[in-house]
């Protein structure tokens, strides 16, 4: 019996070693592909960075609203964002090549899954980015308008508008991806309703400022009670 046990162990060890030996070239090819892709990606990013700096790319893009997008994208500058995209793009291609060397069927399976969900993922990302930009734009519009109307709760109300739009865009993105299902719907409803209730309370309980402005305040700044407006701005 012990000889049979020894024989079975030898057989299984040989199988494992043979399998591993069979995989080893593929693994080494994968690692080599990743290393090579990283080197190529670094080189391309370096050349791209030199080119964009020569073209003063950051200054040109910064005049087109980059400052609104930057905090949400997490890159300090447009040049840095592009070079990072190029580097990781090349590394990802190297990963696919290495994966094909490891097992040719793996890449086709991965590609099928990726492309199947790529469009949904891209749309969800677009929804998030657009929602973020829209939220910041609307909140700034509300803030400026309310400050010019002398509403003291201007900042609170503008924050409320911002989070309303952010929650809406996030919920739409998750719904598009099919993540969460009814849990996301319920959570969105609760959050959205909560924010609206908070805004309503803020406006209702502290409405004296708004009522003063709309009913009893002079129609022009600087007007005294009961007197004619003292200015013509134009």
């Amino acid at each position: 019996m012990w000889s049979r046990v020894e024989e079975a162990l030898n057989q299984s060890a040989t199988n494992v070693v043979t399998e591993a030996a069979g995989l080893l070239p593929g693994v080494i090819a994968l690692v080599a592909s990743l290393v090579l892709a990283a080197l190529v990606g670094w080189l391309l990013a370096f050349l791209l960075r030199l080119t964009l700096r020569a073209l003063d790319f950051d200054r040109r893009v910064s005049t087109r609203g980059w400052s609104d997008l930057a905090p949400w994208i997490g890159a300090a500058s447009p040049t840095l964002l592009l070079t990072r995209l190029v580097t990781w793009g090349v590394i990802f291609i190297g990963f696919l090549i290495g994966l094909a060397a490891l097992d040719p069927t793996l890449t086709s399976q991965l590609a099928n899954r990726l492309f199947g969900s790529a469009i949904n993922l891209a749309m969800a990302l677009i929804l998030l980015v657009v929602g973020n930009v829209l939220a910041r734009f609307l909140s700034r519009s509300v803030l400026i308008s309310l400050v010019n109307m002398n509403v003291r709760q201007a900042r609170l109300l503008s924050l409320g508008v911002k989070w309303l739009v952010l929650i809406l865009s996030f919920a739409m993105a998750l719904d598009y991806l099919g993540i969460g299902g009814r849990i996301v719907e319920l959570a969105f409803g609760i959050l959205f309703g909560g924010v609206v209730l908070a805004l309503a309370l803020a406006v209702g309980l502290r409405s004296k400022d708004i009522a003063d402005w709309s009913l009893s305040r002079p129609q022009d700044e600087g007007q005294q009670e009961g007197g004619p407006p003292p200015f013509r701005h134009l």
Partner: protein
Amino acid sequence: MSPGPFPSETQAQVDRLEAADVVVVVPRCGTVEGLRATAEAIRAAAPDLRAVVVHPNTVDDADAVRGSTGTTTLQALPCRLPAVSGLPLPTEDARILFDQLAAVGRQVGAKSYVFAGAVPEGMSSATIQALVHPVIDAQFDLVLPSYARHKFDGLINRSVVYPLTRALFGKRVTGQLGIDFGLSTRMVSGVFDRRNGRGPGGSIWLLTEAVERNLQVCEAHVSAFLPPFETGGDVSAALARVLGSLFEDMERHAPTWQRVRGSQPVRIFGEPGAAADESRAVDASTMVESFQLGFRNLQEIWNRVLPPATLVELGRLTRAPLDRFRLPDALWARIVFDFALGHRLRSISRDHLLRAMTPLYLAWVASFVIEVGEDDHAAAQNRLERLCLSYETEKPYLIARWRWPDRFNP
């Protein structure tokens, strides 16, 4: 279809016009009584003057205008005019208006054009004469109005438009936002010269167009009827509209104003009217509160446009007691210059930028009101003269920031 600026039936009327010296456009003259009053004012101003009166086609009574008294001949031309409420002129409306003026002027051989935007009840023969005489007799190309207004009227003009255009283009002209002006043939044809390459959008500032083309500019004292007080008006929207077009104009004419140094007075025609000097009850505290609220809430916008030194000074100002609330002239000039630069660089949405300037403008108004509240008209004018000189003194700051926006950080 008529190839000109008029529909075919109006073009036929234009073709029948006889020779005239001046084309008078009265866009608000939409009644028969108004037309008669306009005709009487023209006859009283210059009995020898041959004029074509272009008025809205809501009334078509040539007898109200036509007639001869002595050697005066007046002709009427009803047509569809663009809705122009004052300077600056929206570009597309100005293009239509100037095309119409040029077409009529070519037909009748006119030497002068008058745009009398005041309602006819307030139009006087002195106004017509003040706008026509400098062009026909003194060979000026552009006549801008000088209204005798109360010291608290036209505050956007007093705080920004006049001192800024004076510092930029070197002409001391106060009537930039008026509704009455006189033009020569060169001015009418030059603004939309094909070489100009002016695209759609934006507005036309007549003074900058004249300076750009080295045309002669003057002012005329005009006692025009002014609209009633703006009730419930949105000062933020008015500020955004006027300053937005002014800053765009600055960008378009940057090579011109960067070469100009100092300023010179322009010739003024006519007799100055008596400025309204009645005492007005003023409460500056609400405007100071608006400024303080703006400082607390709009820092994230202001610090994209204003340098740290300016923000520190504004912070100090928010703590000043009401009777010592003073916005220094040099600081205000630099704030205006910084917003003009921010408008050019599009650091944020232009509409947001201009509306965010409202609390700063109200701070200037409050400071001005507190300082000159008890002064007479002459003392208030002296105060504004000091403001204009500050704009001129700070102009190198604007030029440096305009040329090197990334490198100049005071």
